[in-house]
């Protein structure tokens, strides 16, 4: 079975935010909820690198571990999803997530922050596939349509790779071999406890 992963090739990412708006467009993500964002390290200095970050769908996901109501589940192709019916909006997943993926409709007090929302790898949630209820709660389900996340499909320089971990690692490896440099499969060590051996 495929093991879905994200890989952002920091040597190609130009912080054009196509991934961000593609996600907003595909799932009608409202203002204030940023499932995906681009962070630029060393901004303005040589060695500046931009990385597009949403949720890495980790192996043994920290968010799933700390959730007091265990509302997370990992699908057969290793996409970490959660149920908004069960979520109580406590915010623990945000503390545990190394990548700051969870988003909350309300930012005020701890009491009623609303149900957590996060990148679903365009795989919807625990509702009937391609149903209106699924769209209203979790967004569209491209994986059910045999497609891949729109953020990666529309990435302007093909920096953001999504798909089976083996395949995108192979793509990235070939690139690094051909171009002679690479800043590493970003975030893989933390998320998947492995990296791409070049």
């Amino acid at each position: 079975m495929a093991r879905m992963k994200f890989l952002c090739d920091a040597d190609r990412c130009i912080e054009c935010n196509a991934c961000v708006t593609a996600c907003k467009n595909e799932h009608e993500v409202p203002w204030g909820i940023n499932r995906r964002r681009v962070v630029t390290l060393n901004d303005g200095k040589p060695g500046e690198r931009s990385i597009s970050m949403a949720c890495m769908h980790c192996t043994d996901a920290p968010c799933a571990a700390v959730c007091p109501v265990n509302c997370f589940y990992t699908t057969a192709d290793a996409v970490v999803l959660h149920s908004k019916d069960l979520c109580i909006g406590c915010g623990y997943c945000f503390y545990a997530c190394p990548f700051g993926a969870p988003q909350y409709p309300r930012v005020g007090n701890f009491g009623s922050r609303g149900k957590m929302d996060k990148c679903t790898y365009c795989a919807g949630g625990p509702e009937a596939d391609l149903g209106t209820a699924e769209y209203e709660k979790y967004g569209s389900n491209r994986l059910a349509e045999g497609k891949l996340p729109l953020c990666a499909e529309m990435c302007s320089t093909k920096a953001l790779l999504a798909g089976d971990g083996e395949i995108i690692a192979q793509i990235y490896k070939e690139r690094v071999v051909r171009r002679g440099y690479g800043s590493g499969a970003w975030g893989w060590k933390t998320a998947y406890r492995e990296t791409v051996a070049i």
Partner: protein
Amino acid sequence: MKTIVLAVVAALALGALAAALLTGAQRTAYQAYATSGARVSEPGHNLVGPTWSGEN
């Protein structure tokens, strides 16, 4: 026993009061993440529900 009941009732009352105040002071993400340069009239409510509770 009367004091105990009174205390419990008082606790619940204070709790309810805190609930009302805190929920009132609550700010949605689109209010919090809109700066003075932006006027957000239609923030959209997919994924978060019409009342921005994440429940729809």
